[in-house]
């Protein structure tokens, strides 16, 4: 279980307790948190679950991107070097306290 903070582009904050094994994307969808579309349902083929990890420490601590994540991020809305696909971030106790920022829009 991890407490994840989701911050919308307009600054609205949401906090959710997400069970281990779910993705950060699923944590948002199941808790009706706006700002993550996840059109492909976690298939890493839509880039509409794009988030920014603004905290550098967290960016380093997160598991590295798998093959294909950066390719998909090329197709996201305003990707940056601290961009991640939230469907690829699998929750474990280690992610407790993670904050993700949402882009202005997903599509």
């Amino acid at each position, binding site marked *: 279980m991890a407490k994840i903070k989701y911050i919308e582009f307009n600054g609205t904050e949401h906090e959710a307790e997400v069970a281990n094994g779910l993705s950060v994307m699923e944590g948002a969808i199941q808790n009706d948190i706006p700002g993550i579309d996840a*059109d492909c349902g976690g298939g890493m083929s*839509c880039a509409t679950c794009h988030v920014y990890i603004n905290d550098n420490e967290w960016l380093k601590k997160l598991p590295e991107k798998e093959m294909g994540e950066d390719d998909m991020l*090329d*197709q996201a809305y*305003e990707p940056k*070097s601290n961009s991640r696909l939230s469907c690829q971030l699998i929750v474990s106790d280690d992610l407790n306290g993670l904050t993700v920022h949402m882009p202005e829009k997903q599509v």
Partner: protein
Amino acid sequence: MIKTDVVIIGAGPTGLFCAHQLGIIGLKCEIVDNLDKIGGQCIELYPDKPIYDIPAVPECTGEELTNNLIEQIRPFNFNFHLSDRVQELKNENDKWIVKTLNGKEFETPNVVIAGGVGSFEPRKFPTKSTEKYDGKSVLYSIKDKTIFKDKSVVIFGGGDSALDWAIELSNSSKVTLVHRRDEFRGAPASVQKIKELSDNKTIDLITKYSIKDVKGNGSLESVEIKSESGESKVIKADYVLGFFGLIMQLGPIAEWGLNLDKKTIPVNTENFETNKKGIFAIGDICTYPGKLKLILSGFHEGALAARGCFKYARPDEKYRFEFTTASSTIKDRLGVKE
């Protein structure tokens, strides 16, 4: 005006199998899809990936699944209207008038929306200022490459479309290729070629930059690009091309007065009809308690929606349940000789 029993919106696996079920029970249909090919997500997003959960098919790729579904409906000779998008649904005298972007019109008692997460559309630049030039000098696909001859063309993207066009246009245009990082996702041979063209100064390759603004006075003159650390550059441009893949946009479907739950359409699970009589929704686009976004669920939904369509298409007939193994009528429809 094309008259038919059912218009299916979306040629993904769900729409295709629904067409099969319509053919089996003796109804006609027309299938419209925005993509230039049949197969929906399976063909656009994962043609080469194996799928392992199609009942009785231990393994098949997205492309194989699509080809088999096409083969299965071949006997019915249904028409496909590809590269066209359904824009408008209007009710007239208990019939639905369906209009497409390319100006086709259908009259039908039934519409089956098998639209997935919406129609596939190119992802556009995030910069508002590009909108003014959209379709003129800011382009997301190329129909006529001769317009670029002797022009300055700035291409954004790191996939095959961006690389292939950069290579192709470098013969007769001044090409700049801009990409947000150093790695490219295109085919290794194309990446190699781009590096050569950049080394011998045939093209300008700029990485770790993205678009900031476009400028012009009536016609496009330049594009400004920015790096993440805030540096910016201005490049002369007659044309700006963006290749960021396709995204799925609900688009016109949201404007048809259907109940919506986020990006999905609530349906009843008896016949998958929506809140509008004669409009059905199946596959990824529909929602109901327990909905699974799987191909196999879409097949089931399509079979029931097809029976729902029968009622409105043949109001004076009674639908008779039959097995394909046993019914000679069905075998006739399939053109099978006994």
